[in-house]
């Protein structure tokens, strides 16, 4: 409960939380202190509804250098190189102001990664919008894509992939997730820790303004009240959206990396959500030290800002570095070179003994370092001690009826030719607007199964390793069964990495869900986390970071559960490109992996794109037979990795069977090569469009040799047909010209965006 009329209620705190704050302080908080708690105890900063559940995820591994809880997860990739990865959401800002919302999402994730000492090397953007027959959705798509393009290209980090999903459940609450990977020499790893009494906290970057105040609490931790998601989307929340400046960020990145190279920094933290209070209280709490912050030392963009505004502003392109006093001149010199503002705003101080005799590391906000204390709060109370909620969870009672309405049973077949053409979407209109090549690392860029990069960059030790990244989600599956749906999504991600020869090493996740105060949403979240844990345990994959975005609702309607999995893989020797989808005339087309789903129904259609297009959103989700899966994934990975290492192979093309099923995978290969294929009759209509993961379309010019290698490791192989000709035929079901497939796929997105 909260009392909207009260001050704490207006700051997003419940009555119970207000009582807890009074207990922590042993007195009533003043206005400023209450504002600090309001942002730090917000759902967005504190994960108070999800943290109890997230503890069930596996997070360790011999190669994990930094797990969840820091600014980014980090693994040791070998050759003296560590890889940092992080994923976040910028959903609500993008719903209100798509260009700036998406742009500042990119900026924030970059800071999280270079905070660890890593140079950001690549960004990926999973995007979810409503269907494009609505003008507002077209406006959102164009705004978000141009925001990512405008900011990401200018800041100088390539955007190498992502996802594009259209579904009406996102029409009033689009999702804009952003993932960043960076790399660093292992020894340069730094953490966001303040230590050393007498050290200085230096604020780097932009001046602080009134933009983004309450972004984490007012905006990110509440739903939209708009009934129709259009005109009534809350205009009043617009001042909570931040404004980005990629040129400032670019100089900030270069300055921070030079500071780290020079060894001038004890700890460093970006200022994103909850601004200065978050940056100072988190670094102090991690270091077990106090921090005095002088609000008058913070360079301001405008006059008359109150201390609470200065402390909670989410102005972009700012960092806090903890340095020793003797390095101040050197830090100033580097910042001057890069035209980056640097101001001492804090002093690291010893913990203090309170009136109760207990020693605490306090965050003190002061009017001048020797001036009046405006706020005095235990740093850990803000950073770590938000209440944790085990909110009520309940399997929704409507779910049984949804499951029973299974399109596998009774949906008419219709015209497979038309259905297939309708499922083809080339996202090139989006990714052509992104610089996907900077740093000369992009071996496989956007629009394929996974992105593949050389593991190289300025300042890194020489290596022939590569890293692969894939972002995957399937809200259609997760709506039916959040546990199995999330587990299958993880498998789908591992399969995508296999297509470029990389072995999965770590997972990050962005859990986009509805209102956690709805028991059905909490049940979905909890189930989804369990499914992720099961899949990751089964595949021996650590979860090294994540972000939870709740309150994705509008007018009381929650989005479908949308856990996005970011998979990071490593390939040991990358000297030649993987085969991609480039099959050749005369090749044999084979299906690798379990031909049938694991259960009574060989080709389930529940949760498929095919069924969803027919407005059939029900049905049962079916899993994958583990034995076939555990033989198939390493087999395909090894086949491709061998090609990437420069060895000859009979394999000419590899493509994961994903959304849209087998028919869609085949048509995509036809579209990019301009070469058709003749595929024998499948086992039924369901096999065209069923989507269960762990299957691959492979083209080989020596099917006997290929099948023998697969048999050696127990990976199932079925011959489907032959590459060649100017048509794609699949038994008697599909017969389409190459030209029509290519034209429909290329035009689908452009035509929809240009419709009026």
């Amino acid at each position, binding site marked *: 409960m909260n009392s909207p009329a009260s001050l704490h209620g207006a700051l997003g705190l419940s009555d119970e939380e207000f009582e807890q704050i009074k207990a922590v302080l042993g007195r009533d908080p003043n206005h400023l202190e209450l504002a600090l708690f309001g942002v730090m105890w917000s759902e967005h900063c504190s994960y108070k509804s999800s943290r109890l559940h997230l503890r069930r995820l596996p997070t360790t591994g011999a190669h994990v250098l930094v797990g969840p809880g820091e600014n980014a997860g980090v693994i040791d990739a070998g050759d003296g190189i560590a890889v940092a990865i992080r994923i976040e959401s910028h959903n609500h800002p993008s719903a209100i102001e798509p260009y700036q919302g998406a742009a500042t999402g990119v900026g924030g994730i970059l800071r999280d990664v270079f905070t660890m000492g890593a140079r950001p090397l690549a960004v990926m953007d999973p995007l979810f919008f409503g269907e494009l027959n609505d003008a507002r959705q077209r406006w959102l798509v164009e705004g978000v894509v*141009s925001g990512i*393009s*405008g900011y990401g*290209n*200018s*800041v*100088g980090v390539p955007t190498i992939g992502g996802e594009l999903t259209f579904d009406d459940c996102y029409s009033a609450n689009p999702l804009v997730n952003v993932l960043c990977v960076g790399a660093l020499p292992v020894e340069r790893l730094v953490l966001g820790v303040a230590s050393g009494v007498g050290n200085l906290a230096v604020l780097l970057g932009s001046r602080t303004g009134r933009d983004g105040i309450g972004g984490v609490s007012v905006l990110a931790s509440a739903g939209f009240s708009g009934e129709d998601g259009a005109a009534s989307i809350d205009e009043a929340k617009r001042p909570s959206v931040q404004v980005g*400046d*990629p*040129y400032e960020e*670019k*100089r900030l990145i*270069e300055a921070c990396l030079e500071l780290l190279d020079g060894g001038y920094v004890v700890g460093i933290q970006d200022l994103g959500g909850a601004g200065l209070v978050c940056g100072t209280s988190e670094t102090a709490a991690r270091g077990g030290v106090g921090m005095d912050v002088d609000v008058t030392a913070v360079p301001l963009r405008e006059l008359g800002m109150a201390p609470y505004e200065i402390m909670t502003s989410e102005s972009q392109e700012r960092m806090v570095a903890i340095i020793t006093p003797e390095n101040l001149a050197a830090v100033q010199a580097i910042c001057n*070179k*890069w*035209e980056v503002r640097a101001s001492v705003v804090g002093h690291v101080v010893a913990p203090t003994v309170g009136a109760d005799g207990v020693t605490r590391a306090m965050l003190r906000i002061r009017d001048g370092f020797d001036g009046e204390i405006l706020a005095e709060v235990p740093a850990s109370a803000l950073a770590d001690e938000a209440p944790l909620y085990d909110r009520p969870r309940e399997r929704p009672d409507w779910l049984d009826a949804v499951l029973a309405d299974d399109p596998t049973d009774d949906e008419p077949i219709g015209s497979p030719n038309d259905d297939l053409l309708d499922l083809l979407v080339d996202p090139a209109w989006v*990714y*052509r*607007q*992104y*610089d*996907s*090549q*900077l*740093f*000369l*690392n*992009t*071996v496989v860029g956007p629009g394929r199964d996974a992105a593949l990069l*050389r593991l190289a*960059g*300025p300042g890194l030790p020489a290596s022939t390793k590569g890293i692969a990244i894939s972002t995957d989600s399937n809200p259609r599956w997760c709506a039916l069964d959040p546990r199995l749906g999330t587990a299958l999504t993880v498998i789908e991600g591992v399969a995508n990495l296999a297509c470029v020869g990389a072995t999965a090493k770590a997972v990050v996740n962005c859990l986009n869900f509805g209102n956690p105060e709805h028991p059905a949403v909490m049940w979905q979240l909890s189930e989804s986390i369990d499914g992720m844990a099961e899949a990751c345990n089964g595949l021996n994959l650590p979860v090294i970071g994540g972000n939870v975005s709740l309150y994705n609702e509008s007018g009381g309607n929650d989005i479908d559960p949308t856990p996005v999995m970011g998979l990071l893989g490593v390939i040991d020797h*990358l*000297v*030649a*490109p993987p085969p991609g989808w480039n099959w050749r005339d005369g090749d044999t087309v084979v299906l690798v992996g379990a031909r049938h789903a694991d259960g009574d129904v060989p080709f389930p259609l529940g949760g498929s794109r095919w069924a969803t297009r027919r407005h059939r959103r029900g049905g049962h989700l079916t899993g994958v037979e583990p034995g076939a899966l555990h033989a198939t994934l390493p087999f395909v990975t090894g086949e491709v990795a061998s090609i990437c290492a420069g060895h000859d192979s009979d394999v000419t093309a590899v493509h994961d069977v994903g959304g849209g099923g087998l028919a869609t995978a085949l048509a995509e290969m036809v579209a990019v090569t301009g070469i058709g294929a003749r595929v024998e009759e499948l086992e039924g209509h369901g096999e065209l469009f069923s989507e269960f993961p762990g299957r691959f379309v492979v083209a080989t010019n020596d099917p006997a040799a290929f099948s023998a290698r697969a048999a050696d490791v127990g990976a199932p192989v079925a011959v489907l047909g032959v590459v060649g000709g100017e048509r794609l035929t699949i038994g008697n079901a599909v017969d389409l010209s190459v030209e029509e497939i290519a034209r429909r796929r290329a035009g689908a997105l452009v035509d929809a965006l240009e419709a009026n």
Partner: protein
Amino acid sequence: MTRVGVVVFPGSNCEYDALAAMTSLGADAELVWHSVTDLDGFDAIILPGGFAHGDYLRPGALARFSPVMEAVTRFASDGGSVLGICNGFQVLTEAGLLPGALQKNRGLTFLCQPTTLVVSSTASVLTSHATLGQELVIPINHFSGSYTCDDATYDELIANDRIVLTYKENPNGSRGDIAGITNARGNVVGLMPHPERAMSTLLGSDDGRILLESFVTAPIASFVL
């Protein structure tokens, strides 16, 4: 060994890529900060891609006032080889070292994609090793890459064989399909595509090598002459 300086403005972002390309061709390449006023000792200068000074006002408009540009102008008038790639081309036009201007792409969106270029003149430090009519696959990566100029300039470019590269299929609406031009002397070249991104078949194309090899060896060649 050719000594190549790669100029870094605040906001440049292709400087390391240009450096890597030069190094892979055996050049002795180093970064040159934009406040430098003396380019003595360099055989060739590259203005790399990126967003110099944030592209504030318009691309290249502020970078032309960076201290290094006076030195680049002197270097060019002394016959030194100067190459502007993408944003570097924009800077060269703003600085008056090359004529014309780069305006927004015809489709009003940023474009990152492979293009096929046609070598239209070999009378420049960038194209001397290529053959006339040769087709090269090299990516573009720009928002303001549509070359434009007045009629007199265009006629002059044609008459003096100063259009060095054209697009086979024009992606941005540039006048005469122009992708790159040179000055009258052939020692200052600007182009919108990124030859440094086409140095390895691992990354899709190594057609950029022939251009950058020309550029790296040009100073030595002219010295021998």
